[in-house]
Every structure is written in C-alpha cells, then in structure tokens.
C-alpha cells in the first residue's frame, strides 16, 4: 500500500515538474506520431522493393518497429531522465537525500525523475503493434506471450541501466553511456535475424536488444518456441539479479561528495 503511495507521489512530482515548463500533451502527441512515421518510413522504402526480407513480411517487420517505439518511449519517459538525475545527484552529493528515505534506493532512483508525457510514444507504439497484430492475425495467446516477452525485454533494459547507474559511483560522469544503450537499441528497430555474425551475436547475448523488439514480434507471429520464450525470461531475471548485486555493491562503495 505505502509502496503504491510512494510511487504515485514520485510520479506526481515529476508530472508537476514537466507541466511547470509548459510542455503540452498535444505537442508531445504530435511529436510522437511524427516520430513514429519517421521510424516506420524505412520499412515502406525497403518493402516497396521486396515482399519479404529474411523471411519477414512488411506487417511482421512493422510489429518489430512497434515494439521498438514502445521501448524508446519507456527509455525517454523513465530511463533517461532518471539517469541524468542520478548522475547529477552523485556529482553534487545530493544522493545522500535519496539514501535517507525509507524506500528502496534502487526503486527510488528508477522512478524519481520521469517525464510522464513521453509515455505518449508508448501509446503510439502500442497502436503500431496493434495494427501489425491485426494484420498477422495474432490471437490472444500470441498477444499475451508477446506482452510477456516485451516485459522481459524491458526488465533487461532496466537492468542494463541499473548497471550503468551503479558505475556512476565509480566514474561519476556516465550519462554518455546511456547513448551507448540507445545506439544499441536503435539497431533493434530491424529484426535481429537481418544481422549477421558478430553484430547478431552482440544484439542477442551482450546487449540483448533483440529480446526487446524481435522476440515479441516473433511471438506475435506465433513462431516463437516456448523454450526460447522461457529462456528469454530466465535471461531477463538473471540480468535483473546481476543488476541488483552491482547496485548493492556500488552503494557500499559510495562515499558521497565531501561537504
């Protein structure tokens, strides 16, 4: 109960901060749609030339892009603003105040500075996925497993982010690392099976962006083996555990900026 109250209060403060700067919901919505159009445009160019690409039809590839837009929305709304805020906290020593609150510090820094309006991107992404799901005739089972995989993918993104934040206690200026995650995610707008060799390996196992975009799309096509889906979720849980350890270890090392 009180956890819900805490999260709601953090969200409220973020929303109020955003509104102070007169960011308008309508403006953000227009931007989100324009951005989605820009992101999907290459698909139309490519599929204008060929009916399929490495076994993916236009509609199926559109689902990948839809999941990509959702992930990007989450990144912009929740992940990036928090990362910038944590780096600032560590640099200025105000991270002390985070540690003085009786709320799990990892949860706190994951939610304390968000840009809720950016979640509009997620809505647009869900729209795109919905359109694609309809086009490939996905049933409830496919939708459910796609959603679960998407959540596993987001857990993974959050774990990567947590590791980056943990490293902030050692290196302080790490906000540039978020660009690395972002560049990696950018590769996820195409199905992973399009890539070859090293890049494919990296996108599947090292920076498993494929898990965020391609796997849910495969699930939507009904082509994901249950074992692969389960494996993906296990990987997500392992990553979350590793991230938790990295976080608690680096907290112990935290020595806060001097007075």
């Amino acid at each position, binding site marked *: 109960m009180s956890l819900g109250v805490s999260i709601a*209060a953090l969200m409220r403060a973020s929303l109020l901060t955003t509104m102070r700067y007169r960011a308008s919901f309508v403006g953000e919505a227009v931007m989100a749609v324009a951005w989605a159009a820009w992101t999907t445009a290459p698909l139309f160019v490519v599929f204008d030339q060929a009916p399929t690409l490495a076994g993916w039809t236009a509609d199926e590839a559109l689902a990948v892009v839809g999941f990509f837009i959702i992930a990007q929305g989450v990144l912009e709304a929740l992940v990036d603003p928090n990362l910038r805020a944590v780096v600032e906290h560590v640099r200025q020593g105000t991270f002390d105040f985070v540690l003085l*609150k009786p709320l799990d510090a990892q949860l706190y820094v994951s939610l304390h500075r968000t840009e809720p309006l950016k979640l509009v991107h997620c809505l647009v992404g869900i729209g795109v996925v919905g359109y694609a799901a309809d086009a490939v005739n996905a049933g409830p089972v496919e939708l459910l497993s796609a959603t679960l995989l998407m959540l596993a993918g987001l857990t993974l993104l959050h774990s990567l982010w947590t590791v980056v934040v943990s490293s902030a206690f050692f290196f302080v200026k790490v906000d540039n690392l978020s660009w690395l995650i972002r560049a990696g995610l950018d590769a996820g707008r195409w199905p992973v099976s399009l890539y070859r060799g090293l890049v494919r390996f990296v996108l599947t196992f090292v920076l498993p962006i494929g898990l965020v975009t391609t796997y849910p799309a495969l699930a939507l096509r009904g082509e994901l083996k249950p074992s692969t889906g389960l494996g993906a979720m296990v990987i997500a849980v392992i990553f979350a555990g590793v991230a938790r350890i990295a976080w608690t270890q680096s907290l112990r090392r935290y020595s806060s900026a001097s007075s």
Partner: protein
Amino acid sequence: MIQVTALNKVYTVPKRGEGLWGSLRSIFSREVEEVRAVADLSFSIQAGERVGFLGPNGAGKTTTLKMLAGLLVPSSGERVVAGFDPSKRDPAFLRRITLVMGQKQQLLWDLPPIETFALNRALFGLDEAQAKRTQDELIQLLELEPLLNRPVRNLSLGERMKCELAAALLHRPDVLFLDEPTIGLDVRAQVAVRRFIAEWNERSGATVLLTSHYMADIAALCPRVIVIAGGALRYDGPLKDLAERYGGGRKVVVRTRDEAPETLGPFVREDGALVARLPSAEVAAAVDFALRQVAVADLSIEEPPLEDVLSKLFAERS
C-alpha cells in the same frame, strides 16, 4: 540515543599527478593515498540533548555525521543511533533520524516547497492527518505560509533553508543531524533558524547534533560541545568550561579617571586601561582590589570570544 565507540574512517584517495603529463600518468599507474578522516572517536549523547560538534574545516565532522546517518560505512568502530546500526539503513531507523545539510538541498527545485512536503509525507509513509498537523506546526513556527506556493528556485537562501528544515522534520525524527544549517545566511535568517532549532528541540524532545562555524549558533544552542581536530576528539564537555579551560580566563578591563599605572596587582596597562586575564574564581577579588586602589571610570568583564578559544584548541597538537 547516540553511542559512538572507537570510530575510524580511512579514505583511500587516488593521487593525481600535477599538470597534463601528471594526469596522463595517473591514468596508468594509480597511486593511492590513505587519508584518516576520523580517528578513534568515542562519545555518547543522551536523548533530548543539544550538542555542538565543532572542528576546523576537514576535521571529520561531516564524515562523522554521515556515518551516524548511515550514509558512510566506517572503517572500524561501533556506533548505535536510536538503537540501530546505521549501516543497515533499516527503514525504521531512517524514520527516526534526519540530516539537514546547509550546503545541499533536497527541495524539488522547480516546484513550490509544499510539493516536497507532500512527496516526503508519502515516502515516509506518514499518517496523513498527523503529518498534516506536524506540517502546519512547522509552517507556523518557521513562518513559511507566504513561501509555500512559490517555486523553490525563486526563494532566497534563508527561505530555502527554513523550508529544508520543515521538509526534513515532517516525520518527527528523534535524532537531528544538522550540518552547518546556517551557512551563508544573513544575520536575521541565522537568528530565525537558531530560534527554531531550540524551540523544536524543546517541543519534540529530539536529540540535536549540530555543526557550525558560527559561534553564535553554538553559544545560543549548545550547552555541550564536542570538539574534534584531525579526526580525533579534543574536548567533550560543557561549553562554559571550554572557555574557562582554553580561553585564558575572563578579561577584566578597568578604565581609570587619572592616568593608569603601569601595573597594579594582577593588572597590566594596555592602551591606557588596566587589563587582567583571570580564571572566573579570581575575578571578584581583582575587581574589588582595583576599586579600592584607583578611581574607576568604567569597568568591564568580558568572556573570551569563542572563536579565540577554539582557534587555540584547534592549533594545539594532540
């Protein structure tokens, strides 16, 4: 309420070379240096006490406060605060303490202070009705009413500090760690903060451990002081004894109607007046003696300035 035994904190800091070449070299061969911030510190503070924690810059005051608040892990030693080991950062512990830092702020910069209050009420899981009562009490005591709805960034430093105090006390902690709460404030704001701390201590019975470089804060607030220098304890006891022991006694100044003699009993002529520095027990006799020996035009007895007392104490080698 606070029990500290043989507390130590050693930082390892990387030694950086000088200049560009030195910086480059230190990337490859990292030399570290050990800095002992707190050395074998022991003291205990009873519930409800107001204690001044004094020392020169870099003495280890902030490091100690942070160890007591659970923000830093000591290298060795024991500490118990409100019955808890601070390192565990138990939520029940965090609900019983607070830390206010004059140089850092927790207020949400773009929002009015009332929003930070609302956030803290939620984060501490406070009972809404009781928290509102505490909040109203704080607003009234600190005279925050006109500030509540202005964005923090538009407030003055003094106004912000008053709001910081309110935000830090909403959960009615039993232990207040105040790290230079009056730093940079003008005299009026200093007085307001000082009065508030005394008032809150009396109302809530909370224990206060306060650091400050303004001796007026200490003189007004802290019957007891703990002095550290170089991380080690130098003095722990009543403030008034500190002046007695290290201040070289009280200064008695006698201005005479006629020209003062070179010396007179314990007095020596300084700038045309007779001056003696004496332990308080001998002051009355000396004054009596002077009144009988010379025609007195004016007489004053001064406490040694705390600043002088402390700089003497800080300078002393242990």
